[in-house]
């Protein structure tokens, strides 16, 4: 480990821009103080891997509207409450009579719904490949227990299409720190076509400081050449978790999806299949993305085009207490993480 640290500190080869795709990686890199340990020639940039951050305003607006109807209760993780919609967020809705419940697990929705059969409990199902299987569990349980007043409003997204979008439309990335949790489900092989197509290395990384450093080291040594390296072999296999994949495939089909700041990306989302449409609270076509603040640069932050501290709102009108964009809300959002750790690079 000391050798890796001194190598990364002393590296003076061609400048490299490495993207950590996953929000948990972004947060952990800040928490461990990793950027300060790297040579100035190695720059870490954050990608679109925080599910809350890539959610478009139309989705929030739909949740707000659903919560205001007397027969509904919107159920959500805490992060989602403060994500700005077109004009209001879920907290605002709650304060003006909207029915919003915060839970720690989507499965808590079942009990709430069973205890209150007169109302429909709608879970705000955001996330990537990692979380999608949990929503299938929610639906399985609802079906097997005959609970019919549970629905989900989905904004589910998949990683490979958005990585493809970044490489094609923006470029400038010399290596990807591939998301560990997503890879547990999808398997590391899923990144091979992208690596070959763009000639860029991928390193699947765990979440401990030393694991992240090792993955950065592997990417730097690859020096921009293709290849997928699995540095999280304890949890990630080439094929991934087949059971989870089958469950997701049973309930969901790929669909075009809108990403905050990037617009529509073909086949980058998941929507409930026709036969389970009765559980859908109206997820299709939520594509509008009109940020409340025109100066917010979340879009460019999410694709690594600018660092959070290059946004004119960062730290002035946009702070964790008064977030103007979604990246300042979530604990895994790049802006939140830069702000709360006063990260300079």
């Amino acid at each position: 480990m000391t050798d890796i640290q001194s190598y990364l500190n002393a590296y003076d080869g061609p400048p490299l821009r490495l993207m950590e795709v996953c929000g948990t990686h972004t947060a952990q890199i800040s928490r461990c103080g990793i950027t300060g340990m790297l040579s100035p020639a190695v720059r870490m940039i954050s990608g679109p891997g925080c599910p809350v951050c890539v959610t478009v305003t139309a989705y929030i607006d739909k949740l707000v509207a659903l919560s205001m109807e007397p027969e509904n209760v919107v159920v959500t993780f805490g992060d989602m409450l403060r994500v700005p919609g077109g004009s209001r967020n879920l907290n605002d809705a709650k304060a003006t009579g909207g029915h919003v419940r915060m839970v720690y697990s989507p499965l808590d929705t079942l009990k709430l719904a069973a205890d209150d059969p007169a109302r429909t409990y709608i879970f705000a199902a955001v996330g990537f490949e990692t979380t999608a299987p949990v929503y299938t569990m929610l639906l399985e349980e609802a079906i097997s227990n005959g609970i019919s007043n549970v629905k989900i409003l989905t904004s589910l997204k998949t990683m490979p299409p958005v990585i493809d979008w970044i490489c094609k439309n923006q470029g400038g990335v010399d290596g990807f720190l591939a998301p560990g949790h997503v890879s547990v489900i999808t398997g590391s092989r899923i990144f091979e076509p992208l690596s070959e197509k763009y000639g860029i290395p991928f390193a699947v990384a765990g979440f401990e400081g030393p694991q992240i450093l090792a993955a950065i080291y592997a990417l730097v040594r690859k020096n921009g050449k293709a290849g997928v390296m699995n540095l999280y072999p304890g949890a990630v296999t080439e094929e991934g978790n087949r059971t989870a994949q089958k469950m997701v495939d049973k309930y969901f089909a790929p669909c075009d999806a809108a990403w905050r700041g990037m617009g529509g990306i073909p086949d980058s989302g998941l929507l409930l299949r026709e036969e389970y449409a009765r559980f859908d609270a109206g997820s299709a076509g939520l594509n509008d993305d009109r940020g409340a603040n025109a100066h917010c640069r979340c879009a460019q932050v999410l694709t690594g085009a600018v660092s959070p501290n290059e946004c004119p709102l960062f730290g002035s009108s946009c702070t964790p207490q008064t977030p103007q964009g979604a990246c300042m809300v979530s604990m895994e959002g790049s802006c939140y993480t830069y702000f709360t750790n006063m990260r300079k690079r």
Partner: protein
Amino acid sequence: MKITMAHGSGGKATAELIEDIFEKSFHNPVLAKMEDSAVVPGAEKIAVTTDSFVVTPLFFPGGDIGRLSVCGTVNDLLMSGAKPRYLTCGFILEEGADTEELKKIAAPMAETASEAGVSIVAGDTKVVEGKGGIYINTAGVGFVPPDASLSAASCEEGDVILLSGNLGDHHAAILSERMNIRNTIQSDCAPLNEMVNALLKSGVKVKAMRDVTRGGLGTVLNEFAGASSCCMELEETAIPVSAQVRGFCEILGLDPLYMGNEGKMTAVVAAGDAQKALACMKKSRYGKNAAIIGKVVSGEPGTVLLRTPIGGTRIVTVLYGEGLPRIC
């Protein structure tokens, strides 16, 4: 028996409730007079504080709302250098609350008050509509010795920072109960009289001290660094966190630096007194895991730095965002 609106009427039912539960549990000569206000002997300088307790659940591993309502207020008095003497308590009961539960809350309140050397000398009961919830407000009065000189603004370069034990136990215990997670984590809820008395009596020059409650250690040390215009540097590996709480935090994405505690304090002392202060803490009832966790260094005033286990450095800010609601 269930609490009804009649128990808040101020009439017979109220009197019976007070007599049956509160007077019996908190019995002392001042309270026994049942006057409109308690009249007590005083001191030249007194410390006054108040705190309200709305924790859910009411009973949790390692404590309950009753013990908590005494510890919270007593510890606040202690941190200003005062000797806690008197408490008042106000109960806000929702209709449907259970008198058996109330007794189970009053008993540990009385026990903790006795441990902390305070008398509960006045109180109030109100009943509101609701679903059986119980809320407590306590106010506390302490006597301040004339020579007390504690201040968040008096930390200087070279001073050493101590923490009295493991971080995050209370927060993790409450969250585990709410999420139905099985583990053996216990709240650290405790009055810190013995520890503070030992520290102050030992001759250690204590510059500043504070109990580490909501907002966590990160927030408290930022308040010190800001008030003293100094830079503090912590060693992450030196900050005590139990293995169970550490694992719990990793799973849920929590940071022990921002977790609430109910029986922990941090103290800043002159460098030469550090070992003596540590020994005092370790010897006291709730301080066996106390540790020296950092020092005041030269650096950007008002900042708290943390050296991470892999050799990086990051800045520790105050807690942003919500934390966890209703942990105390």
